[in-house]
Each structure stands twice: as structure tokens, then as C-alpha cells.
């Protein structure tokens, strides 16, 4: 895609593009370069000099059981967040799509959580499940279930997953709903004439037609779970208990800022860079594909 008609000169466009290039250079490329550079060194304890260790930080990182555990935690966490945020959203979108009247009103009410920051979502869910004052944990106690996410690793994971997924339900709902509305009516009616009942139509016609949206949301939600859930984890569990909810991004923060281990934190940043790179390529691969869908 190129414009046929363009303007001449190079000074003006250079001036126009300059602000963005400057900001990208100072706040993106320089720091990313620094992260890669620092990942090759170990600073001495006084921070006066640093020693070149090559890939030593990475070797150390991948032999560190805590880091490997954090990888597994992140994998479990992002899988669960993706499922818990997409399945209810699809279900609600299918319901809303069946309605002729009122779907708009439901949509208005369902998009509220999207506007709530992950960190605030964390505070809200923490409040409901607080071991001392939480309403839900109190009723669970009445039912004989002793909720304590401060000590129980599974419960801590469950709570951060639900709190992270909650706002994403709105986001996913919007996309599924729009995609469902775009499914051609004629196809559905043809299937209905042939005697296919609702669920049969859903699984054989609607779901395949939704696959581009589903795949897009899959990637976007994984990216979200990897990078944007820091606020939820920081407010609810601070990575605990015993690192049970320390996802990779949280570990970069806790090692780099709390533990002041710059070499390791930089190496972790570089690993995350690779992860983002892979996810972005996946996303664009999919865009290419969808053109031919």
C-alpha cells in the first residue's frame, strides 16, 4: 500500500517524525539495549564496577529452580486467565446475540469492568475474599470451607486468576458479540431449515466462523496475562505464598527493584523480550492468514 500522490521535501517529514523517533530512542531502544547489555554483566556488591560474564546470567537463571518455577506458574496462570475470561464471555455473547431487544442494555452494563484497572480489580477481589472481613470468604466459612489464600497456594492462584479475568470478560464479550452479529443470517437459517438445532448450529457453523476472533483473543489475552496483570498480583498476593503466584513480570520487578539483582533482572527482561517477540509474530502471522480465511 503506497500513496500515489505525495509531497516533496525531506526536511518537513523529518521534523514531523522526529518526536516519535526521539521518544522511542530514549525510552525504548536505549533501555532495551541496556537490558541486553547489563544481562551480560554482574555488578560488584558496591555497584562500582561490573564483571563480564557472557551468558552466565542466563545459565544461572535457567538453573535457578525459582525461575523455572516462575515459568511454570506463568504458563498455568496465563492458560487459566485465558480460559476463565473467554468462556464466560463467549457464553454471554451467545446469549446476547439471541436477543433482539435489550442486547444493547446488557452490553452497556457488561463493559463496566473493562474500565476498572487491574490493580483496583485486585483490591475489590481481595476485599471479597479477605480472610478477616471478606464477605465471600465468610459465607464459604459458613458452608464449612475454610478459605485462606494467604497460606493456601491453590487458593491464591485461583483468586489472582479470577481477579485478572474479571475485567477481560468485558473485552472478550465485546469482540465475540460483534463477531456473532456479523455471522450471516442466511447461513444460520439454511441450517435451521435442514433441521439443525441450536447447539448443532453453534458448534458446526457459528464457532468455526468465530475462529479468527477466537484466535485473536487467545493471543491478546495471553499477552494480557503475561504483562498487564502485575497490578492484580501486587495488590492481592505480592507473589506469595512461597512464590506460588510469582509470574515472570512480577519476578523482574521483585528481583530488580526489591532484591536489587540487576544482572539477573536484566537477563529476565531479555527473556521476556523474546516472549513478546514470539507472541507478536504469532499475532501478525494470524493477520496474514485471516486475509485468506
Amino acid at each position, binding site marked *: 500500500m503506497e500513496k500515489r500522490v505525495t509531497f516533496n521535501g525531506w526536511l518537513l517529514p523529518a521534523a514531523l517524525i522526529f518526536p516519535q523517533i526521539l521518544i522511542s530512542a530514549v525510552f525504548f531502544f536505549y533501555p532495551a539495549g541496556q537490558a541486553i547489555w547489563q544481562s551480560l554483566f554482574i555488578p560488584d556488591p558496591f555497584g562500582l564496577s561490573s564483571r563480564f560474564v557472557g551468558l552466565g546470567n542466563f545459565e544461572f537463571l535457567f538453573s535457578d529452580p525459582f525461575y523455572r518455577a516462575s515459568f511454570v506458574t506463568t504458563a498455568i496462570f496465563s492458560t487459566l486467565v485465558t480460559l476463565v475470561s473467554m468462556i464466560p464471555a463467549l457464553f454471554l455473547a451467545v446469549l446476547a446475540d439471541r436477543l433482539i431487544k435489550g442486547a444493547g442494555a446488557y452490553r452497556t452494563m457488561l463493559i463496566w469492568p473493562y474500565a476498572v484497572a487491574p490493580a483496583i480489580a485486585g*483490591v*475489590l477481589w481481595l*476485599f471479597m475474599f479477605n480472610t478477616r472481613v471478606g464477605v465471600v470468604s*465468610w459465607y464459604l466459612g459458613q458452608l464449612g470451607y475454610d478459605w485462606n489464600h494467604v497460606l493456601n497456594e491453590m487458593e491464591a492462584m485461583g483468586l489472582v486468576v479470577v481477579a485478572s479475568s474479571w475485567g477481560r470478560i468485558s473485552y472478550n464479550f465485546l469482540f465475540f458479540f460483534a463477531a456473532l452479529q456479523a455471522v450471516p443470517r442466511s447461513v444460520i437459517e439454511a441450517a435451521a431449515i435442514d433441521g439443525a438445532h441450536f447447539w448443532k448450529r453453534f458448534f458446526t457453523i457459528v464457532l468455526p466462523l468465530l475462529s479468527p476472533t477466537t484466535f485473536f483473543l487467545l493471543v491478546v489475552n495471553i499477552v494480557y496475562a503475561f504483562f498487564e496483570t502485575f497490578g492484580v498480583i501486587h495488590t492481592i498476593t505480592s507473589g506469595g505464598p512461597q512464590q506460588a503466584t510469582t509470574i515472570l513480570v512480577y519476578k*523482574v520487578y521483585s528481583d530488580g527493584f526489591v532484591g536489587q539483582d540487576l544482572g539477573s533482572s536484566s537477563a529476565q527482561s531479555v527473556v521476556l523480550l523474546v516472549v513478546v517477540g514470539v507472541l507478536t509474530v504469532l499475532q501478525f502471522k494470524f493477520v496474514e492468514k485471516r486475509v485468506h480465511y
Partner: protein
Amino acid sequence: MTSEAIKVAPASVSRRGKEPAPGMVEKRGASIWITHALMIFGVLIVFFPIWLAFVASTVTQPEIVSPPMPLLPGEHFFENYKRALFSGVNVPVTTMLFNSLVMALGITIGKITISLLSAFAIVYFRFPGRNFFFWMIFITLMLPVEVRIVPTYEVIASFGMLNSYSGLIFPLIASATATFLFRQFFMTVPDELAEAARVDGASPMRFFIDIILPMSRTNIAALFVILFIYGWNQYLWPLLITTDPEMNTVVMGIKQMFPSGDDTADWPVIMATSILAMIPPIIVVVSMQKLFVRGLVDSEK
């Protein structure tokens, strides 16, 4: 990287008409009511955390710490909100709200401005290094702030921008997403317009201001909604660089309101602050719903 994640939505968004005529596959009678009932049930569950926070912000501390707390609002609405707004825990919430507003608007306006300019340069000019710069911007998509926190923090510290608005805003301003969006849109602007402008002897900037900007109004508004929420909801970055409570933003400041030891948190004030912190983005999303959905979904084509 909320806004970064919205770049490539599927094209399956064309509406099939606002109110489709009831065809043969629409359900009637009992099943429509079941659908409504399920939908309302879903909405209630999704809504419950916000409702509970609101209730907690209208009752007293003793009512909360002796569970179960009531599920209907109490009578201490004004008292709690006044306490939150004007005294808070570390710093009045009005201060934090103001900081959030400055940050959100700074990021939004900054991103839109630099992206409009650079997209215009990339689409309407042929200059040396154009492709190189385009890829340079493109690649920033892959560098969310979470990944480069330590070195970016060092950059900000060396500029003396800790605890400042510029430190809050600038690192989050470069946006490949917005640049792509405007580039996509400029591509659809008919060539005849630029041609006519050139024949009439209008300078590129005149063309930009008189033709391109007015045509981009809807795109700008849609992006505004999404970027405002992105900016308002930032957490990790303000947490790192605002050590002075006076500079805290409201979203990151809430966590700072919890006592560090074993003391009981001041729940009514914390919950009132949570509600205050979510009101601006909710107003933006709900009141500009059409633009918001468009920004999320339609603009990706």
C-alpha cells in the same frame, strides 16, 4: 500495554443491521425469558464486586470488620467520601485524582499528537530512511514498559524526572499502535484530495490541518477513549517512580493505603477511593460507548 494489544482485530465486525427482522431462528416465548434470566444472572455476577465496593464505601468500619458486612448501602456515604477526598490515608485522594488526570491526559494527548505527525510523514512523503523509521516505530510494539522497567527507571532517574509528571508521561508516550491506526486511515483518504491541495498550491501542513485533521476526528476520538483508560489505569510505572506520596496516582495509591503491619485497613476509605478511581474511566467508557467499541473493534480493519 493495553493499547498495544488492540492492533489486529479480525475484520468480522460489519453489522448485519441494527434490529434484524425476527427470522425463523429467533426464539420466542419461554426460551427468550430463560435467555434474559441467564443474561441478568451473568450481569449480576460480573457487577457484584463493584456493588460490594460501593456498599463498603457507605458503611462504617465496625460494620465491615464484624462479618458478614451488609449487602445494602449504609448511611455514611458523604462522611466516608469526604474523609477520602480531603484527608485520605497518606495524602488526600483529590491530589491523587489530579495526578492521575494529568498523567492520563498527558499520555493520551502526547500519543495522539506524535502519532498523527509521524503517520502523516510516513504516508505523505518519500524521504530517505522512511522505511527504516517505520520499522523502528513498528518494533516498539514489542517493548512493553513491564519488560524494560529497570533500565527505563535508570534513564528517568538520570534525567532527574523521578516524582515528576514528565517522568510519569514520557516513557509511556511512544505508541506504535496509534501510529499504525492513523497510517491505515490516511491510506484510505482519496488521493484526489492531496492532488487538489497540491494543484491549489497548498503547503503540506495546510493540507494536514485543513483536510486530514478534520477527517480524522472520529479516529482521534475513538483513540482518545482507549488511551485515556490505558493512561489512567497504569500501575507498575507510577509505583516505581513516584516515591513521594504527593505524586502518587490514584490507581497505584490505593495499595499504599493498606497498613504494612497487622493493623486493620481503613476499609470504608479504601473502598471509597476505589470507587473514585474507577469513576472517570467508567464515565468515559459508558458515555462514549459507541466510540469506545469502535476504537476497540472497528478501527482495526
